[in-house]
Every structure is written in C-alpha cells, then in structure tokens.
C-alpha cells in the first residue's frame, strides 16, 4: 500500500461523492419542504442522462463542434427540460395528494418511478446507450515510475468544479434571495408561511424544479464522465443518493453535500482497501450506525416533537 494509491482512492471518492451530493440535494429539499421521500428523483437523473446524449447528438448534427460550447449548451438545455420534468411530476403525481394520507405520495412516487423507467425504455429502447468522449485525457500528479502516480481526468475535474459552482449558486438562491427566504419559511412552517402571504404551492413547485435541475447537472456530468447509461441507472444511484441525504441529515443542504462526500469516500476507501463485493453492505451499515448514534444525521437538527 502506498501514498499514490491512497490519494487516487481519495480522488475517486470525491468525484463519486460530488455526484451523490448533487442528487441528494433533490431528495433533501423535497423532504425538508413537504416531508415526503421522492422516490422518482432517481429517474429524473436518468432522464437527464438521456437528454444529455440526445442534445449532444442534436448539436453534433447541427455542426457545433467546439467542446466548451457544446458542454455548456448541453448542460443548459438538459437542465431546462429536466426541470420541466421535475415540475410536471410534482404537478401530476404529488400535488393532488397534498392533503392526503402520509403514505399516499410515497406510493404515488414509486408508481411515478415505474412510469418514467418504462416510458424511457419504450421511447428509447432497452439497450445500453452512450456518448462519444468529449473530454479527453487528464493530469498526472506526483509521477515517479509505473503505477506511481495519481491520475485525474479532465472530466473528473469538470465534475468537481461544476458541483461546487452549482451548489454555491443553489446556496445563494436559498440564503440570499426573496424566493429562497420563502422556501425556508415554507420549510419551517407551511401553514404560517401561507398565512403570511407566501404562495406555498408555487414554492413547492420551485423546490421540485431546483431539485430536478441539480439532478440534471449530475446526469449531464456523469454522462460526460462515464459515457454510458441505460433506463435502469436511476434506481441504484437514487438509493445511494438518498442514503447520502439521510447520512448528512435530511432537510439540510450542506448535509446533503457532506453526506454525498462521506458516502463516496467511504465506498471508494472500503472498496479499495478491503473488498469491493461488500462496499454497499459497508455503506448501508454506516448509515444504520450513524442513525443509531445520531438519529438526525450528521448535520440535521434533532426533530422537535410537536404535540
């Protein structure tokens, strides 16, 4: 075991963790505001991956070649359409259930997730899809001899940088704007916020749109980096991201990012130094342990019992 390998595993973990974090944001915001687990969120990420490939192919057909322009345009288009998907999902499957039983939206979400998966399968075919490599190569750090280096690809750098930028933007949106203040108010107390003139339905829509955009960023970045996806990817990644959200403390934005990083790092460290077969067992055991000793997650606030 040497330092290069350890550093390389840390790099792997941070990249993976950034992706988990971006998706976890969607879970955590929706949970914070309406207290439901949005099981269809993983499928939103899957749809973003498909949209990325479709827009990329479309731009290539239109003759736009320059990588930075293509990446930026694909990212913006994907975010726009995915956000629309997030909005529509909320409008169709959750809004009519706003005043229903606590489990009704959960079942509806599971149903929605089945719908989206099968819709994409029927529309796009069941086969594994991919995109050509846009970002090539990378940088080698601390190179001294064969196997003695830390490799960071350009796509990985793009993932981490974009994740930081978009999380920063989201943070500003929530903390620094009037709309963000309204979001926080609704999260604190929906009835009170409504009484004070906040259009809660609109705010909930906004939250779904924001969550879906973040999932879109993740979907686009992952597609650029790994280049391969199918209609089933939303499930595994969704569960992992959700685990990250809970780990960090559901309802808390920095918690989602931290949870993603912790999960990504622990997965890659465990997989690298212990055993790949059991890395998911380790991840879920970590979750169970954290919840037992810190029931509201790493950064969550303990829940106040309201009578």
């Amino acid at each position, binding site marked *: *075991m*040497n330092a290069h*390998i350890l550093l*390389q*595993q840390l790099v*792997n*973990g941070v*990249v*993976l963790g950034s*992706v988990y974090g971006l998706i976890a944001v969607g879970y955590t915001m929706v949970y914070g505001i309406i207290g439901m687990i949005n099981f269809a969120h993983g499928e939103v990420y899957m749809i973003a991956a498909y949209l990325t490939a479709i827009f990329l192919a479309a731009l290539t057909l239109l003759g736009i070649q320059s990588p930075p322009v293509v990446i930026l345009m694909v990212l913006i288009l994907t975010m726009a359409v995915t956000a629309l998907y997030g909005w529509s999902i909320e409008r169709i499957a959750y809004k009519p259930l706003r005043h229903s039983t606590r489990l009704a939206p959960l079942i509806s979400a599971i149903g929605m997730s089945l719908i989206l998966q*099968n819709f994409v*399968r029927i529309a796009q*075919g*069941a*086969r*594994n*899809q*991919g*995109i*050509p*490599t846009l970002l090539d190569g*990378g940088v*080698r750090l601390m190179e001294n001899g064969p*196997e003695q*280096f830390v*490799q960071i*690809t350009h796509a990985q750098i793009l993932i981490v940088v974009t994740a930081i930028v978009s999380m920063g933007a989201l943070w500003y949106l929530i903390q620094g704007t009037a709309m963000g203040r309204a979001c926080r108010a609704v999260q604190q107390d929906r009835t009170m916020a409504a009484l004070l003139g906040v259009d809660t339905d609109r705010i909930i829509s906004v939250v779904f749109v924001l969550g879906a955009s973040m999932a879109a960023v993740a979907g686009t970045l*992952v597609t650029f980096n*790994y*280049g*391969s*996806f*199918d209609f*089933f*990817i939303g*499930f*595994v*990644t969704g569960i992992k991201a959700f685990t990250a959200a809970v780990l960090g403390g559901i309802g808390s934005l920095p918690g989602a990012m931290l949870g993603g990083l912790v999960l990504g790092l622990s*997965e*890659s*460290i465990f*997989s*690298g130094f212990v*055993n*790949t*077969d059991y*890395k*998911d067992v380790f991840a879920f055991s970590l979750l169970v342990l954290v919840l037992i000793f810190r029931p509201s997650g790493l950064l969550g606030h303990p829940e106040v019992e309201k009578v």
Partner: protein
Amino acid sequence: MNSMRTGALALLVWGWMWGGAGLADAGTVRIGVAGPFSGGQAAFGEQFWRGAEQAVKDVNAQGGIHGDTIELVKGDDSCEPKQAVAVANRLVDLEKVVAVVGHFCSASTIPAFEVYAEAGLLAITPGSTNPKVTERGFPTIFRTCGRDDQQGVVGAEFVVKQLKAQRVAVIHDKDTYGQGLADAMKAHLATLGLKEVLYEGLTRGEKDFNALVTKLRSVKADAVYFGGLHSEAGPLVRQMREQGVTAPLISGDGIMSETFVTSAGGPKFVDGVFMTFGADPRKLPTGLSLVERFRKSGYEPEGYTLYAYATVQAMVAAMRATKSTEGAKLAAWLKANTVETVMGNKSWNAKGDLKISDYVMYRWTSDGKYEELPR
C-alpha cells in the same frame, strides 16, 4: 367509486377470458419465446425475438411444418427467477406451447427449465451458458450455445499462453452468468498453475468502478478477466484506460454487442479488448443471405439473434422429421441427428450440450469492430 370497482372486476374477467382464449387452433404450432423483454437485460430479449420471428416467417413461407403454420408467443421474465417460473407455467399451461426458445439469464433458465422438463416440453436456450442448465439430467433440455466452463478454458489458455500474463485479476458482476464465467476462469487458471491476484465482484447497474480500477493498479495486474455483460464492461474498460491501466481486458460472450463500443465511450477504449465467443455466426457462409436480409430491414443481427434463429430451425427440423410435437420424441431425434442451421451443422450430446463447442478468441479493433484471432 363504484364504477371503479366494476371496472376493475370487468378487467379481471376480461383478462381471464383473454388468458383462456390462447388455446392452440388446429393447423398451428405454438412456440414460446421466453427471455427478458423488460428490465435491464431487455436488449437480449429483443435479439431472441428478432431471430425467432424471422425464422418463423421463413419457415411459414416455406409451407410451415407439414402445412401447419408456426405461431410465436412472447414470455417476459425480466431476468428474474420468480417471473421466469410464472412465465414458464403460463406458456405450458395457458398458451399450450409445444416448445420453448429461451430463457436468457441463467438464473431464470435454471428454475424455468424445471417446469418445462416436468411437462415434457422441448426447451432450447440460445443463450444460457451456465453449466448447471444441462447438468441436471432433464431429457428434453438443450442449448445452442456453449458452456461457461468451455469459455473459461479457452480464455485461461489464451491469457496464460498467448498473453503470457503472470498477475491475472478476475472480476465478475455477481450474477449467475458473470460469476460462473469468472469461476470457470479461476478454476482453469489454477490447473495451469496460476493463482489470480484479485477476485472481486462489482455491482450491476453502477457506472463508477474507479475504486476497483485503482485496486487493479495496486495489485499490479497485467491482465484483467471480466465475467459479465457489456453494460458494465464498457465503463470498466474506459475507466481502466483513463486511469492509466494498460493491462488487457479479456471477457466472455456477454460483451458481444455493438453496444459495448457505445457504452465504453468510443472505439478507442475497446481497442485491444479480447473476448471468447462462438465462431462469428454472421461470417459463416450458411448465414450470409440471412444476415443480408436482416441488415436490409434495418436490424443488425448481433449477439444471439442468429442463435435464436438456429434454435427455431432445430425445432422445426425435429418436428418435420418426427411428425410430432412431443418433447421426448423431438429430444431423441435431436440427440441422434445433425441439424443444418444458419450457423452450420449442429449436433447434441446426451446432456443436450452441443457436441462441438467452437469458442474462439476475438479482438476488438480501433474502429469499434471485432475480428477473430488467428488460431
């Protein structure tokens, strides 16, 4: 609300009648095609269906089986054992099929074949390579593909004798097929006196294998064998190359699909990947005109398409010769005779395995195609 209930009831009753209506008409022979038509492996189900469909069209155009036309029935198992048993019972009991082409995933094939064997039905899988499928002494069970243990032997011989690898890492996807392949590889490596340096499984459906790739670096593997499907092999090889691992990747027939190139992010990543597969059915002289027809209709007959076609051909040949659809008679005939198929002449041993396994090594090239290595 009341109308909802009546509606649900009507749907049930209708479903019942629909299910019951599927009885065999005089003059038709019903054959089931079972495989994953939904779920993650649906691409392989489609290959089965395309191949079988075309074969049935051709047979019916030539006058069917002594005047009887063949009709295909689809059975979707999503590669899940529970559904496979349900589908198998449905094909046997409701659809009254006389033979089954399928299933694909070994984990589905194994329990489903028990149902067919019990009903005395001829069942031939074009794609399940796990040894267990034919090892259980059922008389009416066949396959038109090879076995994983044969594949593992060819792969291991190649890795040790051609590539002269010393430190082999074996990776699998923790599924019946992939793990079976990896185990076969491991076993034959051992007989060649080599112990693998790493034996681990990745999770199907994930795309990030960077941690595993770093581990490959840390154990200094000089050859990597992967038992699994193209959907994971693609990202794996890409991440290996991106992280600077130059060891060659060797895999089995599960990556035999053009999608492998797409999922790896382009031909430059698959360049130099080796795999074992039956001699390419698309290149056989017997299949040329059929391949042409497929391509004209806008479909590339890749992977198991021609295997499914050949499976139907074998069934039809047996039915024509014995003038029967009884599983035991068909099976006895198939074991005693040689069938001329689109993939050349095929004959089966007493277990139902092909007498001649024709696994050879292939190499993916820099233009995203694969070519047979000179033997």
